[in-house]
């Protein structure tokens, strides 16, 4: 088995060892959102014709968790290894910068998909969610977790301290994921906020993902898909350039 697979495997074992925190906790949080919001808003808000608010909420909550956990996996693992210094044991091996990228992003994808699947399975107990296209659902989940995995690598390399990392998470990832149409359609927003939302890349991840369930979305699916693919290409390229340069990893 090649070195890159071992690094990937190490990343999986790492988050599995704390699965209660890395997988169970986000599932429970999402379910709490689902129960509370659907209880309060069910019957009062109709976003799409023929779709109950609780149904509408499920894909958004799943995608929000995929986004947050995809980011959390690569960023927290990498910053811990960087700050405690054990990253040298990876840096002195024959593993290339590209393989390094692949291992961390792949682990982010696995964690994102596990959390997402977990939320879906439990949500199905509470509400019937239709599936319009499984291919679209899986494609967007893969894209989103990969994009956030790459972003997590960038953030962890950039941050020198845990509080800088936390700031990245709390002031960028969290607001962008909350304000991306998880709880509403952007058509229900005033036009200024509608326009602003269109600059939020997470909006397209959620909108496209939701299309996979209901066959309807705020913007055409091709637009969401293109924007996600562009985001993945740009962020992956940036991550690879940073890793290749050795910025903050190799002096």
């Amino acid at each position: 088995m090649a070195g890159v697979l071992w690094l990937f495997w190490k990343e999986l074992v790492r988050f599995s060892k704390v699965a209660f925190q890395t997988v169970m906790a986000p599932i429970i949080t999402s379910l709490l959102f689902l129960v509370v919001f659907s209880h309060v808003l069910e019957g009062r808000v109709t976003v799409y014709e023929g779709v109950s608010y609780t149904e509408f909420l499920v894909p958004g909550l799943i995608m929000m968790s995929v986004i947050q956990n995809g980011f959390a996996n690569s960023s927290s693992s990498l910053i811990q290894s960087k700050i405690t210094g054990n990253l040298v044991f990876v840096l002195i091996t024959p593993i290339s910068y590209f393989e390094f990228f692949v291992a961390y992003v792949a682990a982010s994808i696995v964690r994102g998909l596990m959390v997402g699947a977990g939320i879906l399975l439990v949500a199905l107990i509470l509400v019937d969610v239709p599936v319009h296209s499984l291919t679209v659902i899986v494609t967007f989940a893969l894209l989103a977790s990969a994009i956030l995995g790459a972003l997590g690598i960038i953030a962890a390399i950039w941050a020198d301290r845990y509080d800088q990392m936390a700031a990245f998470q709390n002031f960028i990832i969290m607001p962008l994921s909350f304000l991306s149409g998880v709880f509403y359609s952007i058509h229900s927003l005033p036009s200024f906020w509608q326009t602003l939302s269109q600059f939020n890349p997470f909006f397209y991840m959620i909108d496209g993902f939701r299309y996979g369930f209901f066959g309807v979305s705020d913007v055409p699916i091709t637009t969401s898909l293109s924007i996600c693919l562009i985001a993945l290409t740009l962020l992956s390229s940036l991550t690879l350039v940073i890793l290749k340069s050795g910025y903050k990893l190799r002096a």
Partner: protein
Amino acid sequence: MKNGLAVTIENVHKRFGAVHALNGIDFTIQQGEFFGLLGPNGAGKSTLINALAGLVVTDSGHLSVMGFDVRTQYRDARSRLGVVPQELVYDPFFEVRETLRFQAGYFGLGREVEPWIEELLDELDLADKAETNMRSLSGGMKRRVLIGQALVHKPPVVVLDEPTAGVDVELRRQLWSLIKRLHSDGHTIVLTTHYLEEAEELCDRIAILNRGELVALDTKEDLLARGISRTLHIHTREPARTLPPSLADKVKCITDDYIELTFNLGREESSVMQVLDTIRDAGVNVIDIRVEEDDLEDVFVQLTREAD
């Protein structure tokens, strides 16, 4: 590829801002050598080692391990190099055996490495800690795991960066005997240290770095021979005023019981005899004689001071 060379360092430069951390370092290490890299703190020892391991990217010059360039042939170079870092770094998520298994995996090693991991655990006296989380180990045990991680892919060249810094006497002895065993098994050993006693005890050849420059590179014996001298201490009960002028300026201290005369000597045996002849001719009564040999520390201090 140059045969017989474990490490080649050719005119390596590295600057960190205004600091010239490595200033044209140039030397080679033969396969099978026990090589010491000495120098005061900030001399550039760790920078040089990290450059070898690919953790520091040099500004110019070439470095290679077993003939493989550390930049252009990094996969080959790194798989032939084992590095024991100076700090006790570990991943708190994993147990000892897992740590070693993953490390071997990063080098692309499959199941075939598992017997070797068991052997390492035994050798490093960690067998009963194999399933213990890294966090729960003592400092000495963590140090041994670091050594295990450096050896897990069976590299021909092993670099130890201050392996005994902050280690108690007993563990230091244990580590020394382990490192000696690695050397006798055929590994090329590169050891950085600022414990001169350690270099004196272990190394065949020694490079001394100071402020990024190589100030000495020689066998241990030749380096010691460069020492200023030996020092001869003679105690006598004669009153200082009765000493002839040729001896009066050799008085180092006067106590109630004796006067101590000290003579800085060359390496030749005859010089001791010359001093003793002078003493006898002056009719001085000797109660004690002691000869002090310079050690590596004196040489080191002298060389790093000269360079200043």
